[in-house]
């Protein structure tokens, strides 16, 4: 171990999932996620695992629901249009307590959308998308290394809380190649008391999202809310960059946060005190990261029309000091472009 490989994001994620003991994959081909399916199709015979090319994302998401009901790790990957089809099962899995991992390689959207880098699915993955009161943990890596690192954690979080976990990337992170150190291969620990394997030597298990009356339904929902509240309290993750002395803080996740790293460097070279908070969990949103940040301006940068802005406004001490810059349709800003935007705002705010 410890060997550095030069690998594509999608493939590093897939190999990392296999090493985490996920030997069941089903999915429907959709750019820019398809390499994950292709990788699994190639690797599963070697691992004595199962790869199924599903007829639709609807089926794929429900297949992993079934697979996780047996206690085994299972994953699917798709892009925005496919995730839209799968949200029915997201609602189901969150309610039924099925710990699947879903990769959403985001597209710009709405509708078809281009296949290049974009973050058009923030609302869809963070605010639900499916019916009812539910949440799913959403992890947003920003490098190939982090894709490899967060994948095993996604399975662990999913099983810890019995809730689906989404990993979001995009056309840049998924296709990007970088040096990566893959995680060690592990055997999945399975000591669950709720799985469906045939009721041998134990009372039978039932997984259902149906209660028998309004009071029972409410109780069922209150129990779910407890689960989501616990996750929200315990699992906020973020990375902060040079925020101590910063008077201007970029808030960005995923690929655009990577771009912003170079922007911060340039800004500092030019005497501007710029820092960054990079949410790693989009849900739960890392509110804790913002609690103490008084007297600072924030620039939310996203590859969409500003879907994360309201979460930032709810987290900062003064929502009037939150600004937004976004690119749409698969266009990515350069580090200089972001720098110019910050310089402009900096001048305006410090007049």
């Amino acid at each position: 171990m410890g060997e550095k490989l030069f690998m594509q994001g999608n493939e590093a994620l897939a190999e990392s999932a296999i090493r985490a003991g996920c030997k069941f994959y089903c999915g429907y081909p959709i750019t820019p996620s398809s390499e994950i399916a292709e990788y699994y199709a190639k690797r599963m015979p070697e691992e004595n695992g199962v790869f199924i090319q599903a007829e639709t994302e609807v089926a794929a998401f429900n297949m992993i629901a079934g697979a996780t009901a047996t206690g085994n790790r299972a994953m699917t990957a798709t892009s925005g249009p496919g995730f839209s089809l799968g949200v029915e099962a997201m609602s189901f899995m969150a309610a039924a307590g099925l710990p699947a991992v879903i990769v959403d390689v985001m597209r710009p959207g709405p509708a078809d959308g281009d296949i290049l880098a974009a973050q058009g699915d923030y609302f869809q993955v963070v605010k639900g998308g499916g019916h009812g009161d539910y949440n799913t943990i959403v992890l947003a890596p920003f490098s190939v290394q982090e894709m490899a690192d967060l994948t095993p954690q996604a399975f662990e979080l999913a099983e810890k809380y019995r809730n689906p976990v989404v990993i979001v990337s995009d056309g840049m992170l998924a296709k990007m190649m970088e040096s990566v150190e893959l995680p060690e291969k592990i055997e999945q620990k399975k000591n669950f008391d709720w799985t469906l394997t045939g009721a041998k030597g134990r009372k039978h298990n039932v997984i259902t999202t149906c209660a028998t009356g309004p009071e029972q339904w409410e109780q069922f929902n209150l129990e779910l809310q407890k689960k989501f509240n616990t996750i929200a309290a315990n699992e906020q993750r973020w990375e902060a960059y040079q925020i101590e002395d910063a008077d201007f803080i970029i808030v960005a996740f995923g690929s655009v946060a990577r771009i912003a790293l170079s922007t911060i460097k340039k800004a500092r070279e030019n005497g501007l005190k710029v820092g960054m908070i990079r949410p790693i969990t989009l849900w739960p949103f890392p509110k804790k990261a913002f609690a103490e940040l008084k007297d600072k301006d924030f620039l939310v940068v996203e590859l969409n029309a500003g879907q994360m802005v309201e979460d930032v406004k709810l987290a900062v001490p003064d929502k009037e000091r939150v600004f937004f810059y976004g690119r749409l349709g698969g266009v990515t800003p350069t580090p200089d472009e972001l720098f110019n935007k910050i310089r402009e705002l900096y001048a305006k705010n410090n007049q």
Partner: protein
Amino acid sequence: MKHEVIFSGIGGQGVILAGKLLCTAAAKEGYTVTLAPAYGQEKRGGRTSCQVVISDEIGSPVISEADLILVFDEKSLEDYENKVKKDGYLLINSSMINIEPKRTDIKVVKIPLNDVANEVGNARTANMVALGAVLKYFDLISLEDMKQIMAKEMKSSIVEINQKALQAGYDYVG
């Protein structure tokens, strides 16, 4: 230390493979390397480009201004001329590009990639001619190291012809 390179051409020309080999070699040297490819939706004939960042630290995979840009076709020249850093290199595939760049604050090098590839004996090796030329402008990776990487990464039946093309590109810019 940071080197930023862009290859841009038409799908099927092997633009990304050239970038990938450059990165693989640099990664082997211990650098932090990022290759960000961009494809059109069509499998062949669409725009294909890749941005290569070779550095000591993790940073943006998107390049503001590149140290070197290699363009295979006229559309790529039009799109990328402005992204070359002042005093940076613009390598032009003169086999396919008949227009002139407008900028005067950059170093322009013309190489007939397809013609050189044809002389080597395989028209499909124009991307390796390009890679050979690019190596000349970097002191990061030696020609020999790159040949070894190619031997490892490519099907054995095509290694030799591609190594020849690499050498020809390297020698052309002399």
